[in-house]
């Protein structure tokens, strides 16, 4: 197409047209920048992480191949590993289990105790990746004696220092260093149990791995260069599955980690995308105010011979230029925020990440930002097509409003809106790993924005009613101002409301989980549990506790077992955390028996139902013996029954240390897992397990912190294999993890809040002229500055209140849904946290509003005479 003179001059015209309002327009476009920044930051960071995972995958696994099981490797797996060794592979062993660690030596009495994660490392392990220590390079000394390298958190907990002695079971170790970085470990993991590395040749000396102890036995394999670990793992997967052995290659590790990171990125990106759309509504609104001011200028242009399409193209060019400017700002901000993200998310990421400029996220952020900016601007811009040259002579206010009202009957504007919707769906599909997920994401976005939009409108309506009450003139005027034309009330409320919604939901979920936890602590009679108590230790421990006047609240037997066979009428559900549609290993994944089948069960037996349980089907047994066929009765937890696809009447055969026990399900239970009591998936009739090898859990309550510490230490001194769980420590650990998670979510919510602030600032800038005129007029009529400030205060406080009420109403819904469906615990509104979110939102709005409008009340009344 030949570019004619008429069109060639358009860019210059467009540029000149923005001359007086350029700063204000850039301000309105900056609301897009925040969304772009969020997307660029999240995408760049996840690209950084995926790249790091790829580079570090071998170190993350520590080997070419890892074979692990919940017990010592069964002979066929052992034989297979031996055959690998014969072909030149090297192997090293890692045994991981929980145990009590005691500061100081056994003889010295010790200082403190703490439940830790012990990793007994064979020589050579890990083959790849460097475990960094402080002081540095102590890792290679680990194997040269009875040494331990520990998390620094443990030293604090035990009040110990490097060089001190650490007791694990019956063995003593010298602490030679603390851990600085372990490839593949995530930061928050140590909150639950500090890590302790010891050489595995001293494992036996601890005497900790006795009957019933839970441990993971892992063999790390280093293969000769010619052997393909991934192919080996795949070809033997069926064998491993049947043996209840887990085999992972480097590629498996990389795949699963990359998938998790991509999911995290997708979730956080969703928040960014929403922030972008919120900014877009701000742009549309600012452009509408801008175009209303431009009506005269447009009419003049039309009089001077400009065609309607020239005028439209001029403004489209302006919008594109500004969108580009906004998106560019966003990219710069995003690249900056990418450097902050490691501090926010780092404790969930198992690799060291070196941020670098990721071109694809940056450029796609730029393109998306510009595109969204133009599309949102298109609505108001297309509205000016209808401005007639005659308007120069006769300015009719109604026609401009009429044009705005009929937007939905104007085909080009409807098309623009549809293109916008289609673009968002396309972006979602591109970001998700499938069209269906993408459509769900779009539906989620539409739902979240739609709900906030409706809540905003309803709240604004209610606020308008307020104005009819008998307030003082100042307050009433402030209230009516919220509804001022061109005030962009809806986009401001939308963005603020969405921010309040995210923060409110977060506060509610966090508050509920913590409340649940502490109420569990208060409601449960016990706050200290001893587990792995051997049969011969039960009585002495019992007397130890009683000698301290501590109650033994219960003593529950535990018998480890696996499922040997079962018959159900329904096919089992796919296992947790495994997806059938896994690319690459599709066939193998689908055939894998579910987690419920492979896992080790720790079951108990008793003759009555526990207070934390509720019978939901069938009947509890009344007899204490097998039926005539030698089949015992069991009661199964309902979610497990669902997973296995079993119901009352089905039979399961258990393998209890090689002994087969046949059972029939006679009841299903609902279990309140959050209670601090031993709960079980499967409970047996006592006669079935009474003679089986078993350990005990004993519960007691010690209210005073110091005596609780003392009684734990004394028990560990006498029974080193017995571990204790201190409920207050769990509360602290969960609190810590929740803090980290909420930091990440709060960081993303910030993008939405900042967008709200920017939309507010640009809205105030857009209506500045009108505001100045009015405040000056009021001053002329006798209003003092404090009165003007009070009017503005009322207006912004109300705006903030509408946003926060809308957000909080939705947050209560969102919080309830999350707590009810995801965490499956009872929900309660935590008014204090919501009040905090609401007041923060209102405060921010008022502060932003008064700051952005500061020149409105400083203008002198003389302007009233001069203007016009």
């Amino acid at each position: 197409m030949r570019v004619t003179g008429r069109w060639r001059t358009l860019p210059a015209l467009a540029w000149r047209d923005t001359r007086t309002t350029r700063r204000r327009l850039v301000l309105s476009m900056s609301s897009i920048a925040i969304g772009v920044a969020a997307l660029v930051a999240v995408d760049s960071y996840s690209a950084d992480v995926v790249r790091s995972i790829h580079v570090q995958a071998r170190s993350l696994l520590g080997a070419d191949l890892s074979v692990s099981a919940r017990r010592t490797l069964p002979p066929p797996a052992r034989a297979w590993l031996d055959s690998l060794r014969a072909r030149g592979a090297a192997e090293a062993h890692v045994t991981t289990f929980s145990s009590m660690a005691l500061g100081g030596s056994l003889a010295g009495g010790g200082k403190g105790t703490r439940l830790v994660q012990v990793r007994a490392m064979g020589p050579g392990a890990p083959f790849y990746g460097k475990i960094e220590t402080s002081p540095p390079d102590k890792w290679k000394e680990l194997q040269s004696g009875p040494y331990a390298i520990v998390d620094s958190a443990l030293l604090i907990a035990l009040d110990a220092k490097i060089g001190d002695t650490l007791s694990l079971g019956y063995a003593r170790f010298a602490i030679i260093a603390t851990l600085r970085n372990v490839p593949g470990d995530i930061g928050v993991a140590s909150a639950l149990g500090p890590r302790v590395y010891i050489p595995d040749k001293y494992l036996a000396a601890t005497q900790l791995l006795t009957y019933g102890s839970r441990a993971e036995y892992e063999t790390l394999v280093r293969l000769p260069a010619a052997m393909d670990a991934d192919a080996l793992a795949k070809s033997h997967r069926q064998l491993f599955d049947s043996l209840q052995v887990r085999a992972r290659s480097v590629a498996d590790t990389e795949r699963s980690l990359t998938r998790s990171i991509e999911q995290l990125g997708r979730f956080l990106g969703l928040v960014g995308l929403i922030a972008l759309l919120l900014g877009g509504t701000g742009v549309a609104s600012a452009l509408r105010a801008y175009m209303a001011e431009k009506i005269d200028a447009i009419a003049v242009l039309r009089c001077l011979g400009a065609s309607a399409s020239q005028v439209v193209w001029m403004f489209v060019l302006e919008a594109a230029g500004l969108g580009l400017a906004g998106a560019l700002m966003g990219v710069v901000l995003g690249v900056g925020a990418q450097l902050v993200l490691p501090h926010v998310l780092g404790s969930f990421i198992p690799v060291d990440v070196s941020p670098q400029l990721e071109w694809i996220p940056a450029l796609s952020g730029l393109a998306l930002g510009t595109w969204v900016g133009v599309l949102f601007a298109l609505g108001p811009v297309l509205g000016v097509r209808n401005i007639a040259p005659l308007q120069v002579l006769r300015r009719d206010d109604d026609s401009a409003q009429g044009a705005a009202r009929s937007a939905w009957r104007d085909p080009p504007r409807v098309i623009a809106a549809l293109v916008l919707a289609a673009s968002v769906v396309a972006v979602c599909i591109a970001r998700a790993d499938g069209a269906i997920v993408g459509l769900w994401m779009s539906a989620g976005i539409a739902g979240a924005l739609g709900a906030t939009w409706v809540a905003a409108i309803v709240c604004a309506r209610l606020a308008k009613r307020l104005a009819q009450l008998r307030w003082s003139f100042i307050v009433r005027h402030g209230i009516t101002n919220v509804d001022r034309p061109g005030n962009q009330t809806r986009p401001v409320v939308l963005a603020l409301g969405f921010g309040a919604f995210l923060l409110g939901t977060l506060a509610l979920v966090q508050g509920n989980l913590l409340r649940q936890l502490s109420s569990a602590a208060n409601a449960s009679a016990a706050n200290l549990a001893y587990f792995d108590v051997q049969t011969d230790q039960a009585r002495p421990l019992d007397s130890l506790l009683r000698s301290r006047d501590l109650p033994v609240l219960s003593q529950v037997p535990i018998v480890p077992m696996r499922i040997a066979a079962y018959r159900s009428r329904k096919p089992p559900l796919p296992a947790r955390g495994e997806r059938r549609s896994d690319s690459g290993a599709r066939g193998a994944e689908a055939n894998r028996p579910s987690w419920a089948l492979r896992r080790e069960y720790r079951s108990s037996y008793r003759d009555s139902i526990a207070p934390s349980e509720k019978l939901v089907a069938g009947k509890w047994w009344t007899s204490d013996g097998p039926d005539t066929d030698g089949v015992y009765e069991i009661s199964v937890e309902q979610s497990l029954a669902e997973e296995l696809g079993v119901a009352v009447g089905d039979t399961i055969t258990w393998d209890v240390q090689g002994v087969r026990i046949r059972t029939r399900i006679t009841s299903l239970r609902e279990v309140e897992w959050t209670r601090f009591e031993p709960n079980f998936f499967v409970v047996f009739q006592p006669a079935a397990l009474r003679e089986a090898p078993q350990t005990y859990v004993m519960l007691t309550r010690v209210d005073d912190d110091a005596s609780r510490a003392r009684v734990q230490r004394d028990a560990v001194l006498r029974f080193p294999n017995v571990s204790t769980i201190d409920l207050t420590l769990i509360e602290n650990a969960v609190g810590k993890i929740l803090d980290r998670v909420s930091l990440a979510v709060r960081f993303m919510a910030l993008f939405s809040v900042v967008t709200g602030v920017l939309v507010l600032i640009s809205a105030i800038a857009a209506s500045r002229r009108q505001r100045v005129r009015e405040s000056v007029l009021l001053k002329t009529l006798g209003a003092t500055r404090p009165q003007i400030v009070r009017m503005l205060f009322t207006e912004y406080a109300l705006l903030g209140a509408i946003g926060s009420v809308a957000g909080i109403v939705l947050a209560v819904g969102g919080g309830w849904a999350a707590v009810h469906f995801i965490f499956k615990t009872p929900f309660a509104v935590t008014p204090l946290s919501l009040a905090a979110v609401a007041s923060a939102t209102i405060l921010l709005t008022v502060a932003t509003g008064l700051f952005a409008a500061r020149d409105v009340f400083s203008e002198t009344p003389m302007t009233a005479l001069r203007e016009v």
Partner: protein
Amino acid sequence: MLVARELTKSFPSGDRTITVLRDVSFTIGDGEFVAIVGPSGSGKTTLLGLLAGLDTPSAGSVLLDDVDLARLSEDARARMRGEKVGFVFQSFQLIPTLTALENVRVPLDLRGDDGALARATDLLARVGLANRTHHYPVRLSGGEQQRVAIARAFVNSPRVLFADEPTGNLDHTTGIRIVELLEQLNRDASTTVIIVTHDAELAARARRVIRLNDGLVIEDSVRAA
């Protein structure tokens, strides 16, 4: 009584100073009807702004009922305006988000006056808009809007009413009616009315004319009754 004493107003413009008013002095007694006339740029609006306390003079002083406006703070001047001064503007200057009645009430509302409703309703009736009280400004014609503005100007029973080109945006017939309304209110409430205009016909109706040119008073004449 309104006294102007050697009023001078100058503005910096670039690196020069432009003097808009020079040594303007006069006294306007209670109940007078004065027109300030002069060509565009002669300093009429600046003078009006100074007399009403919307702006402060570079030199000289304005005394309203013996109070020097320049000595008051901006907020005190605002309160003074709310009590003693009324305004009518060429472009009406109604607040678009308020109804006719609400617009009229504003000065009393700002003072927290309880009688605002009755007084505003009464004044709207007197300017002939009893049936337009709940209309928003956009729904009113230019003449109607100016009548609302006049009702607003009188609602606080001002000592002085300033009108800046009150007929400038109106057709001839409507303009005449507005002037007649101002005259009537001037008579009934004995309010001092000061009109700035370059409409000769309007000026001719005033009993006293102060003519400005280039910032100087070149004529101050009283028409024979």
